[in-house]
């Protein structure tokens, strides 16, 4: 290579206790290059980038920016050298304005006056140059997640970043926002910035990167040009073995289990119709924020319908409750596993039995033995790794926490399974495991209601698909007729509005 690398990591090693998070990692980055750092959760990607940015001090190894070595453990030095970082959990203050957020730390603390006017002009000109529209005076908490990420990026650019690091930038974005983001990244690379983005999503790595470095177990296991590799090869390199997502066989639909007829929930869901049959999966696809959360709450007994009819096992539901749903045999995988699915500070066994604690109580006391046994069955049966019944749930990785949640529902063989965004944020291995379990349950006769914004997931799991747009549901189409283009149209609200809706079930 004739061009000098803008960034060179040499032999970076970092140990946390007994685990080796980074093992002698060396990476170069060329000017104007988009590099993807691909790896499963826990492969050491975020640790590596935290070292580069000075959040952590490495045990060994050096970071050089444009040939100059950075002092370890000094974010300020990294910022000055032109390294900008866009964190996975945004480092923004919701109550402050966009301009306040961008300006923090950019001036000497002891100046008697902030140069707000100059800063505003600079921010607007950068925003203009990269097509990142923002209102400098908007309160950050009032912005959408996509806009907040824009502010994060602008923050880095404002500090004259030459190298931009994005940690799982699409984890919180909708598909549409993600596409916009990658278009922006392209513009930045063309204007000479170098970018590293961390990801475990094969699609986006293939679509956006020039070069891919694969990390596994803290080591660089491979380096490929995006043009010369394939999703299948990357998946295998990342996981270390062949992973194939399970394939759905034809459904044998049975009785109608769960049915909504012209149902309203306030003004958030209006006139929706769906039918879940035994042994069949109904997929609800849609860009998040279109009423999925309300739908999830409705079917799990957290919200009441205000109009129309909801029928469960051919009986009308008038007053639903969470406990009523669970006792009726409805298993639920909530959308946000950290806030609604599990309580991080409590033990695994406690989380395993919490939603059916009455079944594990005797004379008003918790039957801990039965509860631990139940937790052990889940851990064994659903391959939950990284904890015993007594360890804190927070210590589990996202995938293992999701397996725990699935397990506590499926262990009891529910008649209906509601899975909302079941693989959001999970890595390839965990996705395959979750999909397999859902297909197993369906084969055993459970009716599955899958709510997801992942096209691939819905196409591979669902037998029938409906789109959710602004609180309305499209008529269902059979999965055989669905392709990405058609679902894209449906998600945009383009479906026949004629009489089909009336007998949509």
């Amino acid at each position, binding site marked *: 290579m004739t061009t000098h690398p803008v960034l060179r990591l040499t032999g970076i090693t970092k140990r946390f206790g007994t685990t080796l998070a980074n093992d002698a990692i060396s990476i170069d980055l060329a000017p104007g290059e988009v590099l993807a750092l691909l790896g499963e959760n826990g492969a050491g990607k975020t640790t590596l980038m935290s070292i580069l940015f000075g959040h952590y001090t490495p045990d060994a190894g050096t970071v050089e920016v444009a040939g100059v070595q950075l002092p370890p453990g000094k*974010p300020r030095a990294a910022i000055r050298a032109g390294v900008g970082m866009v964190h996975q959990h945004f480092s923004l203050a919701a109550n402050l304005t966009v301009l306040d957020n961008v300006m923090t730390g950019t001036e000497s603390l002891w100046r008697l006056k902030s140069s707000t006017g100059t800063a505003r002009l600079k921010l607007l000109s950068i925003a203009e140059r990269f097509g990142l529209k923002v209102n400098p005076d908007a309160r950050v908490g009032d912005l959408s997640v996509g806009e907040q990420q824009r502010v994060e990026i602008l923050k880095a650019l404002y500090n004259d970043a030459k190298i931009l690091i994005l940690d799982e930038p699409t984890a919180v974005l909708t598909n549409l926002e993600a596409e916009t983001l990658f278009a922006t990244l392209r513009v930045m690379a063309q204007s000479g910035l170098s970018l590293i983005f961390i990801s475990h999503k094969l699609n986006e790595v293939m679509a956006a990167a020039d070069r891919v470095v694969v990390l596994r177990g803290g080591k660089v296991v491979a380096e490929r040009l995006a043009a010369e590799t394939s999703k299948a090869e990357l998946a295998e390199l990342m996981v270390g073995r062949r992973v194939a997502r399970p394939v759905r066989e034809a459904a044998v639909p049975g009785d109608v289990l769960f049915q909504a007829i012209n149902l309203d929930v306030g003004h958030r869901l209006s006139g929706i119709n769906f039918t879940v049959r035994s042994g069949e999966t109904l997929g609800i696809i849609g860009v998040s924020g279109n009423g999925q959360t309300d739908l999830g709450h409705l079917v799990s007994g957290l919200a009441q319908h205000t109009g129309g009819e909801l029928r469960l096992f051919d009986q009308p539901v008038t007053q639903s409750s969470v406990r009523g749903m669970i006792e009726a045999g409805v298993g639920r995988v909530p959308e946000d596993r950290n806030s609604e699915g599990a309580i991080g500070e409590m033990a695994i066994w406690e989380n395993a039995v919490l939603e059916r604690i009455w079944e594990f109580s005797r004379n008003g006391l918790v039957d801990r033995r039965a509860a631990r046994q139940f937790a052990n069955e889940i851990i064994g049966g659903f391959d939950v790794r990284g904890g015993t019944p007594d360890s804190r749930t927070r210590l589990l990785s996202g995938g293992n926490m999701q397996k725990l949640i699935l397990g506590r529902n499926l262990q009891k063989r529910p008649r209906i399974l509601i899975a909302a965004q079941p693989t959001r944020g999970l890595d390839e291995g965990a996705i395959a495991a979750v999909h397999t379990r859902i297909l197993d349950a369906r084969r055993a006769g459970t009716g599955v209601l899958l709510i997801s914004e992942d096209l691939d997931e819905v196409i591979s799991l669902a037998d029938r698909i409906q789109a959710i747009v602004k609180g309305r549901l499209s008529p269902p189409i059979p999965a055989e007729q669905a392709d990405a283009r058609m679902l894209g149209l449906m998600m945009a609200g383009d479906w026949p509005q004629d009489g089909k809706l009336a007998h949509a079930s």
Partner: protein
Amino acid sequence: MELLEIFTSAGIWGAVLRIATPLIFGTLGALICERAGVLNLGIEGIMTFGAMIGWLTVFNGGDLWVGLLAAAAFGALFGLLHAGMTVTLGLSQHVTGLGITLFASSLSYYIFRLAVPLASSPPTIEPFQPLVIPYLSTLPFLGDALFNQTAPTYLAILLAAILAYVLFRTPLGLAVRMTGENPHGAEAQGVNPIAVRIGAVMVGSALMAVGGAFLTLSAFNSFFPTMVQGRGWVCIALVVFASWRPGRALLGALLFALFDAYQLRLQAALGKAVPYQLFLMVPYVLSIIALIVMARRARVPQALMQPYRRGER
């Protein structure tokens, strides 16, 4: 009618400013701490200690201003203690703050007893005298109502303006606000949240102690235990009432002082008909109502009471 005529006397407005002064200092102090993300329930004790040490300095021959400075210095020291426990060690801010209140109060009584022999009437000092401002102080009505105060009162009002400027117009203020909202974000942009928090708690605690010292060096002329009388707790509530803004903190303190001055005069007017304890409640009841109205719209600093530990989320 008599009840409303109270407001037309210049005396009540002068009293309002006088009563408000320690509250202004205390509220601004608590506000600085909380803007950086640290709740400082040590305020009640720090005010007591400020009242004691300020008085003792003057009693032993120090200048009145030296007395205020001594209070500020010891306040900062208690702030350092609070910050050491809550910021550096990340302990519970509630428990630490209450501990400091108990500790600082008891320590003040103890030092006072050691330094001053027991007497039937407490010894006195010569307190601050009203500052005569040419022309203004001699204006009819307004002169008595607004321009007949001691220097620390004017200082308190000036301080509210300075603090508002620093918080919203300077890089330092932005760093403090960012630290109170998201210390991780502050760190990612090269601001050291630990240093900012320690500094804010020390400065804030110094102001609390000055508020206490005002009681012994201006409002009264002697020190006696329990003289702070819950003013610290009122300040904590006023910060919420003020939605963490210095200008509104000033307003809130004045409003509370108005209630208080009014109830004192109500006692004089109606004290024979109703037990006076009823009037003592008036400012607190009105404050609770004001708090309910105002605080619902308040924007709490997002990282208030959350300890910051590097490298953790």
